[in-house]
């Protein structure tokens, strides 16, 4: 009986090793405009994709312009469980800082920031 249980455990472990990786807290997986990128045309929206689902009520995104002044964006949208986005006004050339703060669906909070640059014409 012990040997049979051991064998079952081994087979189950081997099958379960095919599990995808997860991280427990929501980290930024992808951003559009991309982190540190230079874009030719001003983006119409800022979209952030996280490693897990987030609670949009407790999450926020802020954008500051090259002089450090906060840019007025559209309301926070939550098109997918792990994606948030805001619409952007016409951005002038320069370097912008995105500061994000999110709460994952298991209520863990993470934050971060990155920059992107809008190229002058």
């Amino acid at each position, binding site marked *: *009986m*012990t040997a049979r*249980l*051991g064998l*079952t*455990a*081994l087979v*189950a*472990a081997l099958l*379960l*090793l095919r*599990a*995808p*990786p*997860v*991280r*427990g*807290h929501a*980290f*930024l*997986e*992808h*951003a559009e405009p*991309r*982190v540190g990128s230079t874009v030719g045309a001003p983006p119409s929206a800022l979209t952030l994709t996280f490693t*897990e*689902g987030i*609670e949009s*009520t*407790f*999450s*926020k995104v802020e954008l500051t312009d090259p002089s450090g002044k906060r840019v007025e964006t559209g309301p926070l949208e939550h098109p997918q469980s792990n994606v948030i986005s805001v619409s952007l006004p016409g951005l002038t050339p320069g370097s912008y800082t995105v500061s994000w*703060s999110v*709460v*994952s*669906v*298991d*209520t*863990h*909070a*993470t*934050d971060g920031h*990155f920059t992107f640059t809008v190229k002058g014409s």
Partner: protein
Amino acid sequence: MNAAFVALGWADLTATILLAGGLVAAALLAPPSESGRRLQWRAAGALALALPAEFALTALRMREVSGIHGAALVVDLLETRWGRLWVVRSVGLAALVAGRRLSAPLLAAAAAGWLLLRSLQGHAGAHGVQPAVIDWMHLLAAAAWLGGLVQLAMLPRPVPVAIAARMRVQATAALAVLVPAGVYGAFLHVHRVDLLTGSPYGETLIAKLAFASVLLVLGAVNHFRHVPAMRRGEPRAEARLLRAVRLEVVVGAVVLALTALLGVLPMPHGHGP
């Protein structure tokens, strides 16, 4: 605030294991002793305090990160996935207590189902049904093992050989689920070996595995030496078994504390966006 989360998480996990494990043991092992029964319902009482405290602490954290406060904060938190599961879990606890005179198999099944809510609420549940179900299997097996050991230690002496033998089977079956589900969880959360040593999560996981290995050794000693010795009628076998069981319970409490710590630590972040 993290220390408070760890302390509450440990209290929650320990009480959950004692309650659900005790109910499973009542169905599979033996009816609990009077002190064993009291312990189960004291665990339920501890959970009745821990759950609101966890809600309050989580609300404070949400206020800190969002600036939302007052009634809106409570309503918003209750509308989150975590908040809805918190309500169902609390109602489930109340239902278990209200139904305490139901038959042992029915209560054990209800307790097993109730454990799933905890898995859905935590790290694993944030990533979908499969990780949550595997986490639930891990939790249920841990409850059956540790909860069973606690109930065994609280039985009146002498412990019947048949009950010790049933606990041996229950522990072996629990291990057959616990180990693969734990391996799954470890690979799910730390998907590269180098991340094990370079992060607080990985180091805590190593510590948990070290203590869990001690549990495995103690379990193996019970399985291969003490219970067979009881069957042969050796005079000191019962005392040796119960000493090992008490030690397993202490080591199990340390494993649960490390598990609570893992519940608040960020998992290793392998790469950036």
